């Protein structure tokens, strides 16, 4: 995000808002803007050239949220922001979603996508390779099951219906199972009397790696795109 070096952050925010035509109701705009400036802890009197990367990002975010819109498009919105500001950003996204707006968020930070988005599309080399709600996507992939290897007969584990990619590593047995067959496998696990059991649903990261894992230099890869629709 680049700003005009000799305009202050406050001036840049107002200019962008006015150019977009969202400052018709002056009082409402001023209130919204003041609240955002306080929330993002921005000093609006500094010149554009004096801002750090994170502060330039804040100026852009405040300018975006300060005027009402039906569709917000964010491209890597939290790069350069500290975790506290990421939380503030998430709060603002939730607020505009509440007001009925659609938010299109393009991000490589998958935890952010997981937290904010209702629907997710994974874009690879300019094509959407996967799209749906997070629950839909999780369905497509397998859950990982792990427990202590001590006193467990590997042959009986391999016999669990639906289990695949069976492995023993560092004293832990690990296998993958189709997410919709986890419940069916539980009696078998109980019969094995396993200890230290963890059943982890696939994270978005795993979903993502499934689509990108084979492509080592992911030069033209775009990242995950999520939509939070109201």
């Amino acid at each position, binding site marked *: *995000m*680049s700003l005009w*070096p000799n*305009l202050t952050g406050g001036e840049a925010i107002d*200019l962008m808002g006015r150019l977009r035509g969202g400052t018709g109701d002056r009082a409402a705009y001023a209130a919204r803007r003041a609240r955002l400036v306080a929330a993002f802890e921005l000093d609006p*009197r500094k010149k554009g050239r004096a801002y750090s990367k994170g502060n330039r990002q804040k100026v852009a975010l405040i300018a975006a949220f300060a005027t009402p819109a039906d569709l917000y498009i964010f491209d890597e919105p939290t790069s350069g922001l500290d975790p506290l500001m990421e939380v503030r950003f998430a709060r603002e996204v939730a607020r505009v979603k509440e007001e009925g707006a659609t938010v299109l968020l393009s991000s490589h930070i998958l935890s952010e996508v997981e937290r904010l988005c209702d629907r997710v599309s994974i874009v690879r080399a300019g094509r959407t390779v996967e799209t749906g709600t997070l629950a839909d996507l999780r369905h497509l992939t397998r859950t990982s099951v792990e427990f202590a290897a001590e006193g467990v007969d590997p042959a009986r584990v391999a016999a669990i219906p639906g289990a695949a990619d069976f492995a023993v590593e560092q004293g832990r047995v690990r296998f993958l199972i189709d997410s919709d067959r986890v419940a069916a496998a539980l009696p078998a696990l109980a019969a094995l009397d396993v200890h230290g059991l963890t059943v982890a649903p696939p994270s978005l990261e795993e979903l993502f790696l499934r689509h990108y894992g084979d492509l080592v230099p992911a030069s033209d890869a775009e990242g995950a795109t999520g939509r939070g629709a109201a």
Partner: protein
Amino acid sequence: MSAFSALWWHAIRRDRVTLPLWILGTAALGAFAVAASEDTYGDEAEREQVLSLAIASRAILVFRGTPNGAEFAPFVFFLIFTSLAVMAGLMSTFLAVRHTRADEERGRAELLGATRAGRVLPAAVALVHGLVANVLLGALTALGLLASGLPADGSLVAGLALAAVGVAFLGIGLAAAELVATSRGANTIGVVAVLAAYVLRGIGDAAGTPSEDLQHLAPAWPSFLSPIGYGQFTGAYAQNDLRPLLVPVAFAALLVAGAFVVRAFRDQGASLLPDRQGRATAGPVLSSSLGLVWRLSVSTLVAWSAGALLTGLLASSLTALIDQLTGTEGVPAVLEALRSALGGTATIEQAFVAVFFSIGGILASCCAVQIGIRARQEESRGTAETVLATPVGRVRWLAEYWLVGAIVIVVVLGAALLGGLLGAARSADAAALMPVVVQAAVAQLPAALVFLGVALLLVAWLPVAAVGLSWGLVGVLSVLGVFGPLLQAPEWVTGLSPFTHTPVAAGADTDWSGGFWLLGIALVAGVLAVASMRRRELAPGD
């Protein structure tokens, strides 16, 4: 490779085009001046006459130097040295800021600061780089003068004087880079310092004490405040005294020492003068994209207008002086020669005003080009994208730069006109002079509009090269238009410059046809530029 030599090599690589242009350009200007003077002032009697005229009218000395005898070599030094010194000064301050504050502002210095180069070494590299550049500048200029047939000892002194002046401004540039937090601010200080040094020694020369025979002059005290003044004190080709050069060099040493102390103790990105706090909310001007262009142009406009006001003031005040002189015995013959050289039927005053206002025209053109290429700078910085993401279209976006550029030209020329009228009002013959001043100012409008149109066309068609090409065009065509006849360039070459076609104010006899042609060209260029934005992709990045 040590950190120092690595950084220096890097600095040389970065400047591989810029510095040779400055150095060779300055040396070539010196050599050309000798050749041109040989043709124009080959005769000693003629030179004597010119000197006595210059000393009698005084104000002409502001733009020349300290008269030091009518022999050919010192006469050339009198004509050209101060201009060469301005080149050396600008080269040096820009160099100093480019390699210190500009790097810091762009964040490159931070990367270097994390290596074993540290924070102070890059400034030391800039210092050595600048010193070597000035030594080369002095040496090549001396060689150029020598090759043009001037004596060796005097050429060496002239070269050293030039280098010493450059070194003084290198010190000023390095100090300015510590003083303010932006390269823009530091460069402004540098340019103002160069202009101030030029004007101070100009006043010193104009207010100096002439000798009995009106061939020599002892400058007044303001010259002692100017590095360029000390360069002139050497009396190259006559006295050949190197001692005065110790002053600018010592001055530079002092500034450099101060700059290094500040640099060693301050934080990265900090400066002696703090960055001012601005407004928290935007004023009414920043309500539209047009308002933004205007806002981005105001500081440029103010600076160029101030220069134009001064030029206008000088133009008519000096003309008034000429008026007084025409009554003096012996001088009119020279003035007659000047008049015919300036072109035909015009009276002396008209010719004089026209020449001065062509400088105003160059100022307006520079300002217009600066506004035009700002469009490109906004584009490459990425801020144009922010504006174009709103309902503002590309065509309208560039058209607004055209509009603001045109307004700016009118304002700058208006400032020149105001200065001219103020000066004329004090003259005895105000009624005759004022219409000429108005005509001369209006006559500059078309040429400046041509430069604006061409700059915008370059922005639309050759965005990556637009900034360099636009400045290059203004530089080359200004020199061709103003010095072309002096350098005896062929007519088709001088004809390339819009300034050659600028109408010459001559009262009722003024021929305006050149101006209308220029206006047409300006209009076509501007319309083409704006229209081709419809089909152009945005091209961010350098």
